[in-house]
């Protein structure tokens, strides 16, 4: 019997592998420059940095596979707008991203970025950016996003930020700090000192501010940090226990949970303050609210039926309706940025795993095998999910999984990590 079950699992595994679509191969030749002489060499050096960053960006994705760029492979300026498609076909590329870096008289740089369909021999997209001399990495992220969107039709995930809880030590002595970094791991920094326990940081859609739960006052309460100024304040002035914050898609509101006696309900408040408005009143635990991308609806979890299940309501609290009906418990939902899916943690006898279902509750799929997965957060592309996995040794790490059925991959962090949250594309 056990043997049959094992064989069945194997068969399911290979069927999933067979379904996995091939990634689009994209050529990323070195960015060139119209400038000449010393300046030209400087611009080519910047261009090489940008090229490597584009390759690294695209290599993170499940859908696009960059060819390794070669610095000696000089790419002429006229070729930017008139590529030799036969050359790229011969190396197996289906797409091409190329461009140039040009110095400006004010010391800044112009970066031009072009994306082509190699098979059809036509341009898919182009975009130019004027940037500070040291901001080449952001130009690379914008360029990667242009290529990714041209190929997949989904928003790029490169000019985004990730926040999470960095953990060191174990058990009672574990210290936790809020960390934030660019989605490629650059510009990593800690926002809290580690003297108080912290949980669930959540970025505003444009990554300008961040909400998190702090135990600094003795009880868990939501605080807001402005990432530009570093200023911090409590979300609500009361000393009530508050948790599970999430921003509205336009960044103007925060929806969260607050305890009133033994009852946890969902509230909404302006991201810059104001009087919280109560949205649910059912007895029991209502928590983990998340807005739909149009801001008109909220998905949340409630144990009002006796077990944790997912519900959708209008943003004013009316029209509550249950959407999860499988066995076990459903928790921690987040609405995808494209509005199609709801990611969640499903809890059963075999542990916790990440899954998705359509916003109406149909077409449920498991994305991870568990048993210690939680905290799903969507990429801006709606094609990937970042989550935390607790290992058998009790240590936490961050993983990303694509919707195409491919295997989850670890996301490197300097320390153990939990509670990841992925921002939208920055302005």
């Amino acid at each position: 019997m056990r043997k049959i079950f094992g064989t069945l699992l194997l068969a399911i595994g290979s069927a999933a592998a067979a379904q996995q679509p091939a990634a689009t191969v994209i050529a990323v030749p070195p960015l060139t420059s119209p400038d000449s002489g010393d300046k030209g060499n400087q611009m080519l050096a910047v261009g090489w940095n940008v090229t490597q960053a584009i390759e690294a960006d695209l290599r993170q994705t499940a859908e696009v596979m960059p060819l390794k760029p070669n610095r000696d492979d000089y790419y002429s300026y006229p070729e930017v707008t008139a590529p030799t498609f036969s050359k790229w076909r011969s190396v197996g590329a289906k797409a091409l991203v190329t461009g140039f870096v040009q110095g400006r008289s004010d010391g800044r740089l112009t970066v031009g970025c072009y994306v082509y369909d190699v098979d059809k021999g036509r341009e898919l997209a182009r975009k130019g950016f004027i940037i500070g001399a040291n901001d080449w990495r952001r130009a690379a992220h914008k360029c990667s996003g242009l290529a990714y969107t041209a190929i997949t039709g989904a928003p790029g995930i490169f000019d985004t930020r990730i926040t999470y809880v960095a953990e060191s030590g174990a058990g009672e002595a574990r210290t936790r700090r809020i960390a934030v970094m660019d989605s490629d791991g650059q510009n990593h920094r800690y926002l809290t000192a580690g003297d108080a326990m912290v949980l669930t940081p959540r970025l505003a859609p444009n990554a300008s501010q961040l909400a998190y739960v702090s135990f600094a006052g003795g009880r868990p309460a939501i605080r807001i940090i402005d990432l530009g100024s570093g200023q911090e304040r409590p979300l609500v002035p009361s000393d009530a226990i508050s948790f599970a914050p999430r921003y509205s898609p336009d960044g103007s509101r925060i929806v969260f949970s607050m305890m009133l006696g033994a009852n946890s309900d969902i509230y909404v408040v302006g991201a810059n303050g104001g009087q919280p408005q109560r949205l649910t009143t059912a007895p029991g635990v209502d928590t983990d609210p998340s807005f739909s991308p149009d801001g008109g609806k909220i998905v949340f979890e409630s144990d009002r039926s006796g077990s944790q299940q997912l519900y959708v309501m209008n943003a004013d609290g009316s029209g509550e309706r249950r959407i999860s009906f499988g066995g076990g418990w459903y928790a921690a939902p987040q609405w995808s940025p494209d509005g199609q899916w709801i990611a969640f943690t499903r809890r059963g006898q075999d542990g916790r795993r990440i899954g998705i279902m359509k916003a109406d509750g149909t077409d449920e799929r498991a994305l991870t095998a568990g048993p210690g997965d939680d905290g799903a957060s969507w990429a801006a592309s709606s094609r990937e999910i970042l989550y935390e996995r607790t290992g058998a040794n009790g240590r936490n790490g961050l993983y990303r999984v694509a919707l195409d059925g491919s295997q989850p991959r670890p996301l490197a962090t300097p320390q153990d990590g939990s509670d990841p949250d992925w921002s939208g594309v920055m302005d």
Partner: protein
Amino acid sequence: MRKKLFALALLLGATAAEAQLPGLRRRGPAQPQQPLLQGIDALRAEFAAQSGGTTIYYGGGSVALAPTARPTLALQAAWLRRHPEAVVRVEGYGDGQDTRDHALAAGAARAEEVRSYLVLLGVPAAQVSTTSWGKERPGLGRAVTVLVR
């Protein structure tokens, strides 16, 4: 024998006389009331011993008090009524297998159940606060009454 008794009576008389003297002689303000002599650790030990335990366990994801918790809470309440100067914080814990935010809410609800029951038994509400550690500290789902002052 008689000599001995006489000596004892003398001694007692002297002691009694001595004992009255300070009160008769004293001038100025009265001595302040003796502060709590016990340290917080000793007081915690006494609270734990006389209340039959500081921890209430919750089974199977429930946040409702089990009937078996009531005798312990009755003893906690009796001790707290005898010690109005003491302040406690009830710390709730969720279950390790739960999701993070539900565990936080469940811990808070468990702490609140204990607090409500203590208040029902006559403990002044101001003497009892609550918090939740969710699933962030290991161990079973529980609520622990911690003496903080």
